[in-house]
């Protein structure tokens, strides 16, 4: 069973969000990394880029396939986890530590799920 920390919020498209001091830290869930398989490439936005809730802002590639990553929030990218460029496998190893971007100047968000609701989403897809 996928690890779903209770303190985070989630999207149906398998991103996690942690709100910290008015900024949103965004990553991929354990369920997502497990479904994708070994990740070998991550294409992230740059600092200053605008992201829109529900729209794709990054893509990740496993040996098998490429997948889009959707933004749970709208705002401006204030930091990018550059470490992932050389070590995309960190997402497989520790999905809740390997954040993708930090988004500030938040103007909106997707319908975010709590852990219990997200667990149901995973169970249905499982």
């Amino acid at each position, binding site marked *: 069973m996928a690890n779903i920390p209770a303190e985070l919020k989630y999207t149906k498209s398998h991103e996690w969000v942690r709100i910290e001091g008015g900024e949103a830290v965004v990553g991929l869930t354990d369920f997502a990394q497990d479904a994708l*398989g*070994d990740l070998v*490439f991550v294409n992230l936005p740059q600092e200053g880029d605008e992201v829109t809730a529900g729209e794709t802002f990054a*893509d990740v*590639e*496993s*040996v*098998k396939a*490429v997948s889009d990553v959707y933004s749970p929030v709208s705002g401006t990218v204030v930091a990018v986890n550059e470490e992932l460029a050389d070590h995309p496998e960190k997402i497989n190893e520790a999905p809740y530590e390997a954040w993708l971007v930090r988004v500030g100047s938040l103007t909106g968000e997707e319908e975010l799920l709590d852990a219990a609701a997200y667990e149901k989403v995973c169970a249905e897809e499982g």
Partner: protein
Amino acid sequence: MEENARKTPLYETHLREGGKIVPFAGYLLPVQYQTGVIAEHMAVRTACGLFDVSHMGEVTFKGPGALKTLNHLLTNDFTNMRVGRVRYSVMCYEDGGCVDDVIVYKFGEEDYFVVVNASNRFKDVEHMKANLLPDTEFADISDSLAQVALQGPKAPEILSKLLQAEQIPQKYYTALRGVDICGMECIVSQTGYTGEKGYEIYTAPENAEKLWTVLREAGKEFGLIPCGLGARDTLRLEAAMPLYGHEMDETITPLEAGLDFGVKLAKEEFIGRDALLAKGEPQRVRVGLEVTGRGIIREHQDLYQGESKVGQTTSGTFCPYLGKAVAMAMLPRAFAEPGTLVEADVRGRRVEAKVIPLPFYKRA
């Protein structure tokens, strides 16, 4: 999942081993196990991996006309082939396009065993039946055989725990039949689709689970792990081995695909020979690409030089052992020179790649 997808005799075994099952070529097969594609790929390069390839098709040609039929159907020449040898070939249409690529085992002067791609089985059988020459008995025996592939540098040691040396094919592309592995009658060949030393083993479906278990046990001390379709694809791509539907198909000739070694134009006659001769030297060829930009180039992505589209990729992935992204592509001969730079359109983003010699990986 596909409604009619079939299960190989090892389906339950894959579930027990933690395989992630996907539909492939009409069968439900593991794309990977818990270890993941990279670990499975590396196990084959450095230790050993075990694959279920029971989906592959097998047919037999027997009788006084068998040799003549094979020489008619296939591009390679089997005239001087010795018993116990295995040979790669392409099967062409009259227009020179590829029906499939196959491997041919010779077990007797009038006794041949041919392995075909699972996804092409029914098309191949139809084509073969329609083109049989007299005195040839043909049979599709695919459903009466399971097949596993034991691949990697440790494969000989693992098999040596179960078999006497004389029961193990000692040379690449040789085969033995009637081999007794723990009471199970098997065909064993030194062949594979990984670019690594290894064996392919065929047995009756009812033996499959026991054969798998026996090999898993024998391989444990050597680091053997089960491997899925994901690693099978990255391994064959890293070794630049062609895959039907990618590097060759109805629209690509074997010469364009760079399979000249399996096409004997000097042979008196075979289906497709006239067309291949008429076409002459191919104007486009299969090349290797190393991704020099950021990203991964996949199959069927357009290739550009400046604004002009010059070709398309046929396969592409990130190669775990080489640690880089590579692709194979069809490009006009003028662009085939190593060092030539092209750009791939990867979902609207241009990614640079450089033509490099094939294969990407060759075992030492």
